[in-house]
C-alpha cells in the first residue's frame, strides 16, 4: 500500500503527462506482480464491489472525527469527494501500513460478507492507522471509481514503457472481463494465450470532430459517408458458438440484449461486427430516451422486449472467419460485411446495415447532412475508403461531422458545486425557460460543461453573492444571467416538469448581451420537437 499511495502522491504532484507516465512506468517496473494487476484494474475502473454503503461510511466518519453528521455532509459538499473528505476530517496520523495493496484488496473483498459491526471496526482501525495519502487511497478503494486524473490510456502507455510491449497490443489484452483477484500479471500482460481471447473485443476506433470544411479532406471520391447513429457503440462477437456484446465503455452487455442471440446460428464463428445498438420500437428507429429504458434494467422482461426492441446497425467488420481483418481497407471490410448481410438479412433478424453513401461533390455530402434529423441520426461519419481500422481516437482517416446542435436561450436558476477538479466551485447549473405567461421560469435542463475555467470562476463568484436559498448542496440564485444552451436531440417526456427531455445539453455561450426577459419560452422549446 505504501508504494501505491506514494504513486498517487507523486501523480498528484505534477500536472505534466510525461512525468505522470514516468512515475507510473517506474511503479510498474518495481511493484510486486499482484499489486501491479490491482493497479491496472483500479486505473481501468475495475474494482471490487462496494463492501459498505456510503451512508454508513459518512455516519461512521463523522462519529470517528467527533463532528456532527450535518457538518460532515457540508464538508463533503465543499470538498466534492467522499474519500478525500474522510481522509481530511479524521484526526491526522503519521502511521503507515506494511500491508500490500493486494492484501488490502483481499480484505476489502472479504469485508462485504461481514457484519456491520465488523465493517465498522475494520474501517475504524484503518482510518486511524494510515497517513493521509494511504487513508485517502484506502477509502477511495472502498467508496468508488478511482478517478484521479490518470486515464486508462495514460496507464496503458506507462505499462507499455515498463514492459516494452506495444501499446495497442496491451490495450487489447487489458480489455474484457478479467478478475484482478485471480489473474496474474504474467497471464494478463506478459503471456500470449489464444483461448483467453474468446470473448475479447478489439479496441474501438474513434473519430474526432472535423475541424474545417470537409473540402479540406481532399477528393470526395476517396471518402465514404454514412449517418452517425445515436445509440450505443458496440462490438458483437460470435466465436465458438457463443455471443458476446461489448459496449464502448468496455462493458460486457450480452445479457441486456437477448435479441442478438438469434445471430449465433446465422453468423459464422470468428466474426466481430462493429456497429450501433439502436432502439427500434414500432419498426422504426426510436430516440435515445427509448434506449435508456433498456440500458438501466437488470431484468429484461418480455413486455420491455416487445415495447422497445433493439437492432444492431452494423457498419464495420473487424474479424472474419477467425481472422483479424482490421488492417484491410475499409472498402474491403465493407464488402465482407455487406456480403454477410445479404446472406442473413430478414425481417426477423435484428441486424441492419448502416448504408455508406458515395458522392460526387462535397456539396452533396453537405445536403445529406442536412437530412440527419429526418433519418434520426446525429450527422455524418466520413471514412476514407482505404483506411485500416485503428486503435483509439486518431485523426486523419475517420471524421465525425455532426449536425449543428439545437439551441435555446435559458436563464440560470439553480447551481450546485462540482466534483473532482471542480470541487468547491459552483459549476453544475440548472436552467429555466419562461412559462406561457412569461411569469415563471420552468426548469428544463441541467448543464455543466461548455464554459471556460475563467468563465466558471466568474459565474461561481456571482452565485456566491447572489444566492437566494440553500437546499443542501443546491442554491437557488437570482434570475439574472442568460446562457445559450445547445443540445443534440429533443423529445416529449412525462418525467420532466417541463414535459420535454433534451439530449446532452451543454452551455454554448454566456449571453451577457441578453436580459432575462429576452430568454426563450417553453413554447419555443416545444416547437423544436420533431413532429
Amino acid at each position, binding site marked *: 500500500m505504501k508504494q501505491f499511495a506514494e504513486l498517487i502522491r507523486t501523480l498528484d504532484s505534477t500536472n505534466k503527462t510525461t512525468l505522470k507516465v514516468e512515475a507510473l512506468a517506474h511503479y510498474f517496473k518495481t511493484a510486486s506482480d499482484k499489486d501491479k494487476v490491482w493497479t491496472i484494474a483500479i486505473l481501468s475502473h475495475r474494482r471490487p464491489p462496494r463492501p459498505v454503503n456510503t451512508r454508513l461510511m459518512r455516519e461512521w466518519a463523522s462519529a470517528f472525527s467527533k463532528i456532527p453528521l450535518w457538518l460532515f455532509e457540508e464538508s463533503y459538499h465543499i470538498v466534492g469527494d467522499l474519500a478525500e473528505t474522510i481522509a481530511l476530517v479524521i484526526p491526522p496520523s503519521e502511521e503507515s501500513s506494511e500491508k500490500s495493496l493486494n492484501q488490502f484488496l483481499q480484505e476489502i473483498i472479504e469485508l462485504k460478507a461481514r457484519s456491520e459491526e465488523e465493517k465498522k471496526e475494520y474501517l475504524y482501525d484503518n482510518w486511524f492507522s494510515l497517513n493521509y495519502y494511504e487513508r485517502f487511497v484506502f477509502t477511495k478503494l472502498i467508496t468508488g471509481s478511482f478517478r484521479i486524473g490518470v486515464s486508462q490510456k495514460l496507464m496503458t502507455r506507462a505499462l507499455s514503457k515498463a514492459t516494452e510491449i506495444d501499446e495497442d497490443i496491451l490495450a487489447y489484452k487489458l480489455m474484457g472481463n478479467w478478475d484482478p483477484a485471480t489473474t496474474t500479471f504474467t497471464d494478463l500482460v506478459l503471456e500470449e494465450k489464444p483461448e483467453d481471447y474468446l470473448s475479447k473485443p478489439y479496441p474501438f476506433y474513434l473519430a474526432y470532430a472535423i475541424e474545417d470544411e470537409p473540402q479540406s479532406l481532399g477528393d470526395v471520391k476517396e471518402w465514404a459517408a454514412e449517418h452517425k447513429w445515436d445509440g450505443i457503440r458496440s462490438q458483437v462477437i460470435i466465436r465458438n458458438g457463443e455471443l458476446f456484446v461489448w459496449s464502448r465503455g468496455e462493458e460486457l452487455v450480452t445479457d441486456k440484449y437477448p435479441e442478438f442471440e438469434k445471430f449465433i446460428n446465422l453468423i459464422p464463428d470468428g466474426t466481430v461486427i462493429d456497429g450501433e445498438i439502436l432502439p427500434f420500437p414500432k419498426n422504426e428507429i426510436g430516440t435515445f430516451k427509448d434506449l435508456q429504458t433498456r440500458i438501466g434494467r437488470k431484468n429484461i422482461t418480455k413486455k420491455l422486449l416487445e415495447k422497445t426492441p433493439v437492432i444492431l446497425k452494423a457498419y464495420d467488420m473487424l474479424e472474419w472467419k477467425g481472422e483479424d481483418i482490421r488492417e484491410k481497407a475499409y472498402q474491403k471490410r465493407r464488402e465482407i460485411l455487406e456480403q454477410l448481410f445479404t446472406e442473413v438479412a430478414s425481417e426477423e433478424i435484428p441486424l441492419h446495415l448502416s448504408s455508406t453513401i458515395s458522392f460526387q461533390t462535397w456539396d452533396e455530402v453537405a445536403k445529406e447532412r442536412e437530412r440527419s434529423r429526418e433519418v434520426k441520426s446525429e450527422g455524418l461519419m466520413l471514412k476514407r475508403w482505404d483506411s485500416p481500422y485503428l486503435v483509439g481516437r486518431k485523426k486523419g482517416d475517420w471524421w465525425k461531422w455532426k449536425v449543428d446542435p439545437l439551441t435555446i436561450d435559458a436563464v440560470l436558476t439553480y447551481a450546485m458545486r462540482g466534483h473532482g477538479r471542480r470541487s468547491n466551485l459552483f459549476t453544475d447549473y440548472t436552467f429555466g425557460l419562461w412559462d406561457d405567461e412569461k411569469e415563471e421560469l420552468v426548469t428544463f435542463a441541467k448543464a455543466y460543461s461548455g464554459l471556460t475555467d475563467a468563465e466558471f470562476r466568474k459565474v461561481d*463568484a456571482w452565485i456566491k453573492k447572489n444566492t437566494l436559498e440553500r437546499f443542501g448542496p443546491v442554491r437557488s440564485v437570482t434570475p439574472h444571467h442568460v446562457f445559450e444552451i445547445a443540445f443534440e436531440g429533443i423529445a416529449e417526456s412525462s418525467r420532466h416538469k417541463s414535459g420535454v427531455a433534451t439530449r446532452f445539453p451543454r452551455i454554448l455561450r454566456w449571453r451577457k448581451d441578453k436580459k432575462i426577459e429576452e430568454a426563450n419560452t417553453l413554447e419555443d422549446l416545444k416547437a423544436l420537437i420533431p413532429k
Partner: protein
Amino acid sequence: MKTPLLVFNQKGIYCEAADVYLDPWKPVKKAIISHGHADHSRWGHQQYITHHTNVPIIKHRLGDIPVTGKAWNETFTINGVKFSLHPAGHIVGSSQIRVEHKGEVWVFTGDYKTEDDGLAVPYEVVKCHTFITECTFGLPAFKWLPQQQVFNDINNWWQQNQDDGRTSILFGYSLGKAQRLLKHLDTSIGKIYTHGAVENMTEVVREIADLPPTEKITRDTKKEDIKGNIVIAPPSTHGSPWIKKMVPYVTASASGWMTFRGARRRRAIDKGFVLSDHCDWQGLLTSIKATGAEKVICTHGYTDIFSRFLAEQGYDARTEQTQYEEENAEQTSK
C-alpha cells in the same frame, strides 16, 4: 434597546459612539485598519489609524495618505471609546482591533492565524465579550501542519527540481505569503528570484523584518542564471508570458486551499503546499474559546456553517455580511 458597540452598515464595521469605522470598504472620515491587504485597507479615507509597522505597507499601496501609527497595546481614546491594537499574526503589521466602552469589550480580528510564522508578531489572545472573527477556513477539513514540516517539504521540492534541471516557481501573494516563504527558504540550495510586484513589497517589509537576499527578474536577467533556482511570483503570473523565461520549470502554490486536490488540479499547478496565513478549524475554535467571548460574529469565509456549529456549542453566534473579499479556492493566494 441600545445600539450595539459595533454595527455592520453599508460602509463597514461602525462604532457610533466614537464615529469610527474598522476596515471600512467605502470612503469614511476616520478608519482603523487591521492590516495591509487590499480588501481591508482601501483607498479614500480622510484619516487612517493602524499599527506603526503597517504604516509603510499601506503607504506603499495607497500613496501619501494621512495615517497615524500606534504601538501594540497602546490605548487611544476617541469620544470616550477606548481602542487598542493587538497582534493578529496574519502578516507583518496585522492587528486585531479591541474596542472598549462602558465596560463592554469587543474584538475584531481582521484576518489572523495562531501559529508563529517567525515574521509577523504572533497572535495574542485578547479577552472580550463579543468576538468578530473571520472564518475563511472554518471547516473541519482544514488542518494545518506545523510550518517547519511544510517548509521542509518546500525546500526538498526545490532541491529535487534543481537535481532534475528545472526551475522552481512558487506562487504566493505579494504581501504576506511571499515574505513568509522567503524567510524560510533554504538559501544553501540556490538563489531566490522575485517578480517585480513581490520585490517591491519585499523592499518595504525589509524595513521591519530581516529577510534573505532576493533578486528581481528584469528584462536583463539571463535565462541561464535563473535555472535551478527558485522564483517567488504572484499567482496571477501563472500562465502569463512572463513565466516563459523560466522554462523548464515546475510550479507550486502555497495556500490553505491546496488542502483540496481539486483546487490544485483545476489551476493546473504541479504541486500544492498547504500553508495558510489564516486559522485552521481547530485554530479558530481554540482562539474563540480563549477569548472568553459569549457572542461571536462570523464574517468572511464559511460563515453559515461555522456559526451554526458555534451555536450548537453554546455560543451566541451569528453571521454578518462584509465586503472583505469572499476569499475562495479561486484566489489561492493567501
